[in-house]
C-alpha cells in the first residue's frame, strides 16, 4: 500500500505505480484540502503526478524521484500558480 490516509494527511510512499492514481483521487475526494506528504515517494508514475497537478493539494516535502531534482518539475509543483 503506497497511499495511506491518517489524521487528515495523505501519504505517498515508495514507488507509486499507475494504480495509485485512483487511490489518491479517492483519498483526496474523501478528504478535500488534505495535505499530501510526498517526501517518502521514490517514484511517481505519470498517472499519480497528473492527479497532484490537477487537484493541487497542499504538498508536504519534495519526492526523491529524479523528475523533481533541481529545476525539473520541483518549481512547477511547489509554486502554486498553474503553468498553462
Amino acid at each position, binding site marked *: 500500500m503506497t497511499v495511506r490516509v491518517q489524521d487528515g494527511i495523505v501519504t505517498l510512499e515508495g514507488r507509486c505505480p499507475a494504480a495509485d492514481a485512483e487511490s489518491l483521487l479517492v483519498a483526496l475526494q474523501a478528504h478535500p484540502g488534505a495535505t499530501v506528504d510526498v517526501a517518502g515517494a521514490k517514484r511517481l*508514475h505519470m498517472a499519480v503526478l497528473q492527479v497532484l497537478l*490537477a*487537484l493541487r493539494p497542499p504538498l508536504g516535502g519534495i519526492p526523491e524521484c529524479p523528475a523533481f531534482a533541481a529545476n525539473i*518539475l520541483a518549481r*512547477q509543483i511547489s509554486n502554486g500558480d498553474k503553468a498553462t
Partner: protein
Amino acid sequence: MDELLEQFLIEGRELVAQAGKDLSALARDPRDAAAIDSAFRAIHTLKGSFGVFALAPAERLLHAAEDMLDRARRDAGVLDGGTVAALVACLDQTDRWIDDMERSGALPDDAERVSTASTALLKPAASPAKAGAEPSRPAEWVEALKTREADLIAQAGAALVVFRYAPDAECFFRGEDPLVVAEAVPGLLALAVLPTGGDWPGAEELEPFSCFSVLEGLSTSSLEEVQAAFRMQPDQVQLARIEPTAAEKAPGEARGDATLRVDAARLDALADGLGDLIVAINALAPLAAEAQQVDRALAARIRAAQAGIEGVTAKLHRNLAAVRMVPLEPVLRRLPRMAREIAETLGKRVSLSISGEGIEVDKQVADGLFEPLLHLLRNALDHGIESPDDRAAAGKPPEGAVSLSFRRDGDRITATLRDDGAGMDPGRIRQAAVARGLLAADAAAALSEAAALQLIFLPGFSTAGTVTEVSGRGVGMDAVRAAVEKLRGTIEIDSARAQGTAFHIHLPVNALTTRLLVVEVAGERYGVALDQVVETVRVDRAALLPVGTGLACVLRDRTVPVLDLAELLDAQAVQGDHAKLVVTRSRGEPVALRVDAFAERIDTVLRPPGGLLASARGVIGSALMGDGGVLLVLDLPELAA
C-alpha cells in the same frame, strides 16, 4: 546561413527522402502498413519543421497529407494508385519549397495558391474543420515554452532542443509511464507537465487511468539524441531547436554533444596540412640514402624512424579520410523528384530506382557526382527512354525503367545509370560526328562500335534532331566527361539497340592523396596518377611496329597505338634498346605512352593547376616533392587524345 534554417534544410531533405522511399514502396503495395506508418511519421515531423518557421501554406499541405496517411493507418483501403500519386506530388512540392527556402529563405509568392491546389488533390483529408482543430501549432508551443523557460535558456548560452511530448490517452493501459520516457531525455534542463486541453480536470471529471497531460521540456543535447529518447513514440513528439537568447556563445564548447558539425573548409585545411606532412616525410628517404654513405647504422635508424612516422601518418590519414567519408544518399535525394519532373515535361512515364546509395565516398567525390549524374539522367529520359507509344510498339511496358546503382570495388566505386530505352546507334553517331565536322568520314568508319559511342563525349556533339528544353542546355556530354575526369574518374558506355544504354562511371573512393608514378622523359621527371595507368610494360624496341605514320605494339593480343610522351611534350625523345610503356585509356581505348624510365611511386597531395598551368593542356596539377621541388602531374588520357 542561419543555423536553424541550415538544420531545417538538412532535416527537411532527409524527411522528404524518407517519405519518398515509403511512398515508392506504397506505389508498389498501397497496403504496406510499415510504409504507411513510416511515411506518416516523416510527413508529421516535416510539418513540424515547417511549423518552426511558421510557413502556413506548407504546413496546410503537409497536414492534409498527414491526415490522409493517418486515415490509411486505420483503414488500409484508403490508399490506391491515385492517392499515392497525389501524396508524391505533395512531397515533390514540399521538396521544391525546401529548395526555395535554401535560395531565398522564404516560400515563393505563389505558395498559397499552389498549396490550395495541391491540397485539393488530397481532398477527402483536407476538411477545414479538422485542420483548424489541431490543438497546438508547433510554433506556438515553442514560443510559449521559450517565454516560460526564458531564464534557463539565457543561462544555457547555447542552442537547445525543445520537445513537446503528447502521450495518447490510453498509454497507461499499455504499461507506459510518459514521465520515465521524458526523464530519460539526455541533458534534460527543464520539464513541465501541462494539461492536454489547456485546463486541468476537476476532481469530479478526472479520469485517473487516462493520460491527460502533455510533457514539454528543454534539453542541452542534440536534436538526434532527443529524438532517440522518444524512438518508441515518434508520432507523439514534436521537436525544435532554439538558439541561445544571450548573444555570447562560447565557440568550441560542445555542451555534452557527442557529435560535432564542422565546416568542410576546416577539414580541407586539415587535409592540406596532412598532405604537407606526407610531403615532408618524403624528404627522409633521400636523407637516409645520404647517411648510408657515411654511417650505415645511422641510416638504418633514420629508416626505422621514417617507417614509424609513416605508420602513424598513414593511420592519421585513414582517420581523416574516414571523417570525410559521406554516404552518397544525400546527394541523390533530389534525383527521383527531378526524374518525375523531367519525364512529365517530355510526356514520358518513367520510374527511377536507386540502389547502393549507402556507400560512403570522400565528400569531394559525393559533391562532384550530382551534376554529371543529373545530366546523364536528363539524357536517358530525353534520348534514351522512348515515348509511351513507341514503347508499346516495341512491346515494352509504357513506363520506362531507369536504374542508378552504386557498387564498391576496393578503392573505386562504380556508378551505373541504366535505362531500358532505345539504345544508341553507332552508325547515327558516326554520321552526326562527321556532319558536325568533328572528324573525317573515313576516320569515323574506322572506329570500333565502342569507340564510335565515345564520340558523344566530344564538345559540340548532339544527335537530337531538335534541341529539347530538357537536355539542350548548351552543356553536352563533354561536360559530363570533364566533370568525371575532374574527380579522376572514367566513364564508359555500354549500349544495345532497342534494349537500352548503361553509363558506368568509375571513381576513386578517396580523393585526399593521389598515388603517383614518377616517370622520366627527356631528362625531366613527371608524375602520372596511378589510377590513370592501366599497366606499365617493358618491351623490346623491335616489338614496336610502324603502323601508318605512327607506332603500335601488340599487348595481350591487342594492337595498341604507341605515342612518344617526349614528342607530346615537345621534347627530344631518347632512343634505347628497350621501350618502357605506360598504358592508359583514352576515350575507352588503350593507348601506350613511351617514357624513358619508371622511377618511384609516391603518395602525395595533388594541387590543382593554377596560374599559367591552368591553361596548359594535359596537366592535372602539380605535387610538391620532399626535396622542395615541384613535380608536374600529367593527364595521360588528355595527352593521348
